[in-house]
């Protein structure tokens, strides 16, 4: 089976991004670029599927700048065996999905394959729009199942376990299809020294896809959220004293 995993390089989401006053833009230099967490779950799920059914290839693609190759390298050490970076003037979800759809066609042509399943993270941790997987499916005119926590190959295609608010749905869909992945019960695997060495030897393809559709969404301004007025911090000798003071203030504020 041919599996494609779409990934995005994002700033480490454990770092709080701030505005850079000099450029009046978010200061992304303070956060290490990493593979979007939901994409790492997608790759892990794809890798487990490959291990379960055998005889499959996982290709990773990313729309991004040159340095997105680092993110692809990371993926090549934990399950993927081919990687492509796509340069495109894609600044919103529509144009990104269009770039990916065009990249899919290019990769299929170059490799002489047809992808059976395309995995995406359910959203990126930086923009969190959760739109690209669905839009890609629409552009490719294939079905999509979102928010997967598990996947299984069945005769008719795939059986997907979709997380819902109250539990889960089991959804069956024919291939080819797009799936988006949320946090499953397992963690993504770590690379080994050996797998990292092997990944380093794999060349990463660069794709030229020509023009993509014009973005519809334009950022006009960025700002840090308005700060809440700082409150009182209580740190008395004993916790009992601190709590007595806090409870008094809560009563005065009529919240208790």
């Amino acid at each position: 089976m041919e599996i494609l995993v779409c990934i995005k390089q994002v700033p480490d989401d454990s770092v709080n991004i701030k505005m850079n006053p000099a450029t009046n833009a978010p200061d992304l230099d303070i956060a290490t670029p990493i593979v979007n967490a939901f994409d790492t779950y997608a790759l892990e799920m794809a890798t487990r599927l490959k291990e379960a059914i055998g005889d499959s290839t996982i290709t990773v693609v990313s729309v991004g700048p040159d340095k997105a190759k680092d993110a692809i390298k990371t993926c090549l050490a934990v399950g993927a065996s081919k990687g492509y970076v796509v340069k495109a003037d894609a600044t919103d979800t529509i144009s990104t999905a269009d770039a990916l759809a065009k990249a899919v066609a290019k990769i299929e042509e170059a490799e002489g394959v047809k992808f059976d399943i395309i995995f995406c993270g359910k959203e990126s941790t930086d923009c969190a729009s959760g739109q690209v997987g669905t839009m890609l499916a629409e552009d490719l005119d294939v079905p999509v199942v979102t928010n997967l926590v598990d996947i299984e190959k069945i005769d008719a295609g795939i059986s997907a376990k979709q997380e819902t608010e109250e539990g889960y749905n089991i959804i069956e869909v024919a291939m080819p299809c797009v799936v988006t992945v949320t946090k499953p019960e397992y963690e993504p695997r770590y690379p080994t020294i050996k797998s990292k060495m092997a990944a380093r030897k794999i060349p990463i393809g660069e794709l030229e896809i020509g023009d993509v559709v014009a973005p519809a969404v334009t950022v006009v301004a960025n700002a840090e959220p308005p700060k809440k007025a700082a409150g009182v911090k209580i740190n008395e000798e004993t916790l009992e004293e601190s709590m007595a003071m806090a409870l008094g203030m809560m009563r005065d504020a009529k919240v208790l």
Partner: protein
Amino acid sequence: MGCKNVMVYVETAESKPVNVGLEMLTAAKEVAEKVTAVVIGAADAAATAIAYGADDAITVDAAEYNTEAYAAIVVELVKKYAPEMLFVGATPNGKDLGARVAAKLKAGCVTDVIGMKEADGKIVLTAPLYGGTIYSDVTVEGTVVAIIRGGAFKKAEEPDTAKEGTITAETVEIADLRAKIVNSVQEISESVNLEEAEIIVAGGRGVGSAENYELVKELASLLGGVVGATRPVIEEGWVSRAHQVGQSGKIVAPKLYIACGISGAAQHISGITGSDYIVAINKDEDAPIFEISNIGIVGNCVDALKIMIEEVKKMQA
């Protein structure tokens, strides 16, 4: 007015509009001359939508929620009625639906809209980026699909049940569905209404164990509040994910939010900034949660919970 007409998809649960469905009507009225509500598979909810601010409503008969089917319906309605903007609530289903409709219409789509204003005759939408550490203002070319975050706007305080509006029933043919739901399993049976809670007592990893988490539940129950939790707590399995507060859980706006052993990751904070009064207990005096708290208590949250439970019991005695 920034635009002539807005269509609002009012999601329903057990045939009643969900909160964000009604909240969006308030936002829509502020920017549009005409607000049309759409309800699918729950015709009775149309009157509620009108009472909460819609000028008129469209009902479509359909089976239970299925993104493919509901998106097809909304796409047809957008094509027929040509609204300048479509509002969809940022629930898990709403996010799916909004993205699917935008994909079909090739429309610009903004997720988690928390603010809206007019500038130079254009509607500017605000949405959080980077886990809520940056707010981004955007404009959209062409038809706008705005997926609006719950709690960002207030629903009308009193529904105007005397208000009149036209309710039109539409029929939309649905093609065969490509993704088939073969089984729907309900694992979480408790109903957890964090969005409407006036008091929330929430715990983070600092609570330490499932056993200690019982204290969070006890205090919430004593105060008539709802139990909240951070993502690590859900992953530990101390409470079900129905309790998760934050970017990937529920966005809340209670009168009182008590945060126990929560250090305050941006993704959690972005879900609680709408709270009127925040009390945080954390042993780390530099915990970021203190920066947004009205009262920050430095200390062991488990002991603090015990003290607070005793005090509340005394007050109620």
